[in-house]
């Protein structure tokens, strides 16, 4: 009971801002929480990984998937406004930017949703203003028993 109270106080006392970076250590989750001025909604343990769920101040919920090795192998978002992908995708943000910039000049430009598939990094995103949704993961960091469908 006392421990629960302590945890609650800890959650309340966190500065108004946080979360993790794709490919980063679990410790970066709190960096993200600060960055999005959000609240940690909870940590859910699965057999092969844990999920850190945060709510950004914009109302958008972020989920960060952490492997037993302590690495963030996937991230997902759902909510009214786009998350800070520069922070959430970390080192993969440049890959994401480059893929979009290339798509802008492609004669086969897909509009309305994104589907970026590279050997190192996969991102799906869709929705429209007031209702965005998306996920990204690093295949090389995925625990063997986890499928991409789990990340959303």
């Amino acid at each position, binding site marked *: 009971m006392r421990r629960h109270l302590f945890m609650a106080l800890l959650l309340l006392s966190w500065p108004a801002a946080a979360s993790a970076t794709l490919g980063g250590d679990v410790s970066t989750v709190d960096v993200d929480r600060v960055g999005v*001025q959000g609240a940690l909604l909870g940590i859910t343990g699965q057999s092969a990984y844990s999920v850190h769920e945060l709510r*950004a*101040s*914009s*109302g958008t919920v972020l989920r960060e998937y952490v492997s037993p090795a302590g690495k963030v192998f996937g991230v997902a978002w*759902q909510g*009214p*406004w*786009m*998350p*800070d*992908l*520069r*922070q959430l995708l970390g080192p993969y943000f440049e890959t*994401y*930017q480059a893929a*979009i*910039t290339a*798509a*802008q*000049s*492609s*004669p*086969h*430009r*897909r*509009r*309305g*949703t*994104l*589907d*970026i*598939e590279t050997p190192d990094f996969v991102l*799906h*995103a*869709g*929705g*429209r*203003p*007031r*209702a*965005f*949704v*998306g*996920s990204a993961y690093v295949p090389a960091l995925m625990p063997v028993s986890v499928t*991409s*469908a789990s990340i*959303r």
Partner: protein
Amino acid sequence: MPAVRLPLLMLVLASGLLVSQGCDPSSSSSSAPQNVQPIVVNAGPTTTAFDEPFTAVTVCVPGTTNCETIDGILVDTGSSGLRVVGSLLTIPLPQQTVNGAAITECAQFVDGSSWGAVVTADIQIGTERANGVPIQAIGTTVSPTVPAACTASGPLENTVAALGANGILGVGLFRQDCGFGCTVSTAPGLYYGCTSSGCLPTTEALALQLQNPVWLFPKDNNGVILDLPTVPAAGQLSATGSLIFGIGTQSNNAIGSAKVLGVDANGYLATAFGTQAYGGSYIDSGSNGIFFLDAKTTGIPVCADATDFFCPLTLQSATATIGGTNGVTAAAPFTVANFDQLNGSFSAFNNVGGPNPGQFDWGLPFFFGRRIFTAIELQSTPSGVGPYFAY
């Protein structure tokens, strides 16, 4: 519309930017019904677009006949508000200012953001008119620096090439582009107050936000219909259709036997496909494909070269069921063609598809051969109060 006028109309709509200054838009001599605006699905201003519906919109300096008509504007049932690439504006639309700061917007889309000033215009679309409407002049700003937060979800789409259109006419489910959230918090990250020394996030009153112009029309103001013809499985060079204003307000916009599908607060429907139901489904004319599920779930392979589109060996026919929050369901038969085998010089296809894991985005291919209704929030229609989709 007399058949003889069609080629001329198509020529005008296909000819890129059309500017006519100093005109009086109310003196239009169109013989079309009062609430019908022509749209065309063609290669658009970038000359490479497919399955994107374009139209022409007239903007005027408020209260004057100093007007400009800009075509190549994407008709988007997935957003709300008019946005025009600012470099195309030749008339002095006044900057919106609050407490001395120039209000500037970071408009968010799935693949990036558009940064630009909020200016005020009288909007004329066909013979419908909304006066004193906040719109976005994309790429126009009093501050040379774009806030870092506005590039945090992707690259800027501030030019015709990057945006893929001369502008976007958002005629979606909502009255404003942001809504209540932006009136009480800067967290959505949409509105900024700018001076020459920089920009700071700001809240924005509902009436000052970008507005879906349709709900501000004096009549025919409860929603729109996108009416597109059938196209053959091989597609065609282009297709012309109508953006019809109002639902159940005139003889040409009755809901008839269309199924009214209620949406949740986010504008989502559900789609049943196979043995599964997928929440987070939506109907969006701004998407240029039917983007749904993945190769594993559907058995339809993606293209070898463009993995964001499907490439089945033969034309695939499927049926899903779209369900509203009101319990109404509607059958949704659709087809998916081999994207690589479609004629690259065509722009109108009813069978472009691509993966979108766990979701259904019913984009423009779904609109061909249908009349799809988009009813605006809080607006009354004979079939109930919006928001809803119907077809």
